[in-house]
């Protein structure tokens, strides 16, 4: 009976690992990058993570936000930041620089600030 108990505990500990990896920022740079661009696709609160797209120079960046409920708690509702608005964002960009993708910590539009991941600022 003890081996069942022991292997169950080991399995539960192992099961926690991928969940941590998924929500960790393993694929992103340690350094924080700041970008200023114009919104081409506003905040979407659908899917596993909220998203938006901004254009910086000639590149369209995919901004990955927090899970939808957390993003909404940070004040970012759909339609709040209109397409064409200028925003400044900070976050950790993808380790693969060929991808213009960033996990977003903070967004500022005009004087309005959105703290998506305050603990990472």
């Amino acid at each position, binding site marked *: 009976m003890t081996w069942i108990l022991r292997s169950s505990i080991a399995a539960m500990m192992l099961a926690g690992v991928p969940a941590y*990896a*998924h929500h960790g920022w393993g694929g992103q740079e340690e350094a924080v990058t700041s970008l200023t661009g114009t919104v081409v696709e506003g905040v*979407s*609160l*659908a*899917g596993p993570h909220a998203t938006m797209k901004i254009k910086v120079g000639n590149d369209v960046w995919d901004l990955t936000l927090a899970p*939808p*409920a957390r993003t909404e708690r940070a004040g970012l509702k759909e339609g709040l930041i209109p397409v064409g608005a200028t925003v400044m964002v900070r976050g950790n960009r993808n380790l693969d620089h060929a991808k213009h993708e960033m996990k977003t910590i903070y967004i500022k539009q005009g004087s309005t600030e959105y703290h998506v991941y305050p603990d990472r600022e």
Partner: protein
Amino acid sequence: MAHVFAWLEHSPLGAFTRSLGVWSYGVINLAHILGIILLFGSILILDLRLLGAWRQVPLAVLSRPTTTMAVIGFILAVCSGIPMITVKTTDYIGNPFLFIKFPAIALALVNVWLVHRSPAWQAHFTRDLLPAERRRLARGAAFSLVFWLTAITSGRMIGYW
């Protein structure tokens, strides 16, 4: 292929799923996981029995409830999986795991069909199986585990690509 993905994303089902609120993806994802639990949990018990575990349990006693629960799990997984993939389908363009997952499911279903139409499977409801019949079903069980585990593994990895 990108065309098909864009069509799925812009389908009425995609728009409807996206409109359901901030918890909807999590809830649909939960239904998908529950479906997979029912499907694979049942399949694992049946397949291990076909591979020689728990010989004291008559196969016909085990095969009915496990098959029923697996069917319910599969239906739940499909009904939750389709709306989930329509939410942001174009995000999956170039994701290789989709092209492992869906062929693996297709192979798993072909295997189910082949096993169920085999004389050995038909016979197990009414009598003890001959060694050759047991080997036939054990082979089907081995294929089943490989195909379903491949489908589940590649399905999980879609989000990590």
